[in-house]
């Protein structure tokens, strides 16, 4: 329905800038500042410095031997984004965007958060660079991720509860956008996923591609060749696009994005925008969106707060439409199973989000030969989820 466009900010027909006029000037300013920064060796050196000495990069690419044995097929490697400072990949993006904000002379930061991981990563870099930080978080997510709320507050951020809608990530983005429209002159919005109006999907992807770039070099060193498959979970799509992007031209590397199937796609209670959504506009971009026939956006459902978003970023939509990447889904139950499995076979408690990718990789590995290689993006650690998991498992440690 939407014409193919070649303007920047378009991924095939997806993407664009569907925002109120008040934000357009800020987006144009951001795009200009970003285009200059990303070509500037000094800026890139600054980002690299903080990623190494503050975040702790590079993260290991770890051969999960016991998990591989359990799956009984392809070799499974884990890209350990859980070992980053603050426990997830989200900080790769917040370091970059905060340095960009400083360059643009903005002293205040606003952000949304679902699981709280992006909120913590944002609050962290705001403390690091002395920026004032306001985080919007859905009421339901605040309940699910109480400790992360306290972490953000410890780091000096103001956390604002959003009780509109279901009180999850989508509602937090709405509120963050409203705040940004009102405070646009001195505030930068650090969007936390590969979503939103141009140039955000591009900025987030570029700051997350370090995941894929490192993985490529590491697997070449360890195995002397590229993997046969790469697997990552998809909420809005930042860890996955960061992992996929450097491999897009390597056609022998299959790319698998794993959405949250919640209670099951058939139940309607899920967050799988490719499987269950239609094309439409949400939060400034043309994407696959969970919606009803009148174009009202539907609530997403997932046990993992970080995947609880009713759309999938525009570049993923294009990778899906072109067939370059395949999008599948894993239920809450599957994720819980994988979380326990990885904990018990490898001594790594993964985030519930990442557990979706682990589960799919285990299933995929079983159908592949022992010579083949899968890399899973282990986007975060599971400490934040242990209470949710305990409740879901009925308190028994299974």
């Amino acid at each position, binding site marked *: 329905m939407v014409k193919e466009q070649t303007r920047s900010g378009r991924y095939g027909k997806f993407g664009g800038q569907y925002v*109120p006029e008040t934000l357009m000037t800020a987006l144009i300013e951001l795009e200009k500042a970003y285009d200059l920064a990303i070509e500037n060796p000094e800026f890139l050196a600054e980002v690299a410095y903080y990623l190494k000495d503050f975040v702790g990069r590079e993260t290991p690419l770890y051969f999960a031997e016991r998990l591989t044995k359990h799956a009984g097929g392809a070799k499974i490697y884990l890209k350990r984004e859980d070992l980053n400072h603050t426990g997830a990949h989200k900080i790769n993006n917040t370091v970059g965007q905060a340095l960009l904000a400083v360059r643009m002379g903005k002293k205040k930061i606003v952000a949304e958060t679902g699981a709280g991981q992006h909120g913590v990563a944002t609050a962290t870099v705001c403390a690091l660079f002395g920026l004032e930080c306001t985080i919007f978080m859905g009421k339901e997510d605040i309940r699910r991720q109480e400790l992360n709320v306290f972490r953000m507050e410890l780091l000096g951020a103001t956390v604002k509860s959003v009780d509109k809608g279901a009180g999850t990530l989508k509602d937090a983005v709405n509120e963050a*956008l409203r705040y940004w429209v009102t405070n646009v002159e001195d505030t930068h919005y650090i969007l936390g996923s590969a979503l939103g109006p141009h140039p955000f999907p591009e900025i987030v992807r570029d700051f997350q591609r370090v995941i894929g770039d490192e993985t490529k070099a590491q697997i070449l060193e360890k195995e002397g060749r590229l993997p046969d498959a790469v697997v990552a979970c998809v909420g809005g799509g930042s860890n996955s696009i960061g992992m996929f992007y450097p491999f897009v031209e390597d056609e022998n590397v299959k790319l698998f994005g794993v959405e949250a199937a919640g209670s099951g796609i058939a139940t309607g209670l899920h967050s799988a925008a490719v499987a269950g959504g239609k094309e439409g506009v949400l939060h400034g971009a043309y994407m696959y969106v969970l919606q009803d026939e009148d174009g009202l*956006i539907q609530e997403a459902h997932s046990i993992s707060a970080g995947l609880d978003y009713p759309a999938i970023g525009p570049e993923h939509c294009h990778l899906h439409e072109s067939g370059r990447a395949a999008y599948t889904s894993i239920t809450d139950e599957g994720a819980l199973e994988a979380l326990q499995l990885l904990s018990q076979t490898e001594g790594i408690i993964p985030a519930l989000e990442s557990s979706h990718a682990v589960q799919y990789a285990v299933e995929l590995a079983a159908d592949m030969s022992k010579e083949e290689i899968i890399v899973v993006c282990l986007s975060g650690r599971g400490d934040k989820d242990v209470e949710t998991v305990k409740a879901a498992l009925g308190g028994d440690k299974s």
Partner: protein
Amino acid sequence: MTKKQITEAIQACNRRGDKAFVPYIMAGDGGIEKLRETILFLQKIGVTAIELGIPFSDPVADGPIIQEAGERALAKGVTLRLVVETVASFKDEVKVPIILMTYLNPIIQYGIEEFADDCRNSGISGLIIPDLPYEEVDLVRDALTNADIALIPLVSLTSPPERIEKITAAGEGFIYAVTVNGITGVRDGFEGQLEEHLQKLKAVSSVPVLAGFGISTTEQVELIGSFADGVIVGSAIVTALHDGDLKTVEKLVNASKNKIPTI
């Protein structure tokens, strides 16, 4: 009604010595069956045109008052289709231009061409899409032109001069000058440069300039109105209609009358 009639209605109003007054109402707040009565009431008390808001699940450009009105309407099952159909059912009684204000996604699901045709058949002559900036208007332009529906552009305080020129050059009906950095709602004060901003806009625009967002008292109607060709009042009208306080609505409308010396 045709799109030229929106501009003409505002100009006729200005010639009479009045500033244009466009109330924003949330379609279906209080039930879709109230829509006819509300529109006919506003027409009777002398509004220039009516901005008819469509409820949406994610109204990012709206403040709490309009958000809540939208939630009430959604809870009653009000949709874009239902509003267009309902307006069609009493179009012969409507003498003032009706302008729909809707977020983009419901239009995409409706089908852009079908939506434009249905609007025309319902007597709707203008459209405001708050999340469709100048860069993206190609998406709807042809369909709206064919159906003779005005796409009324928003200009904000942050829009730089080159941008304002491009936007106003393509403007139809009137220019919607957003008077605050922010969302719809009730505000105490406005930025000092507002008068200058509105005057610059009027100088470059070939269609009238109406100011809106945050205007909620009779004093603000008079003050902001004096800088523009008219005003749009949203949250204050939505609140008054919700409370059944028709007196306040009349007072707000009257504050726009007899404000231009006629020769």
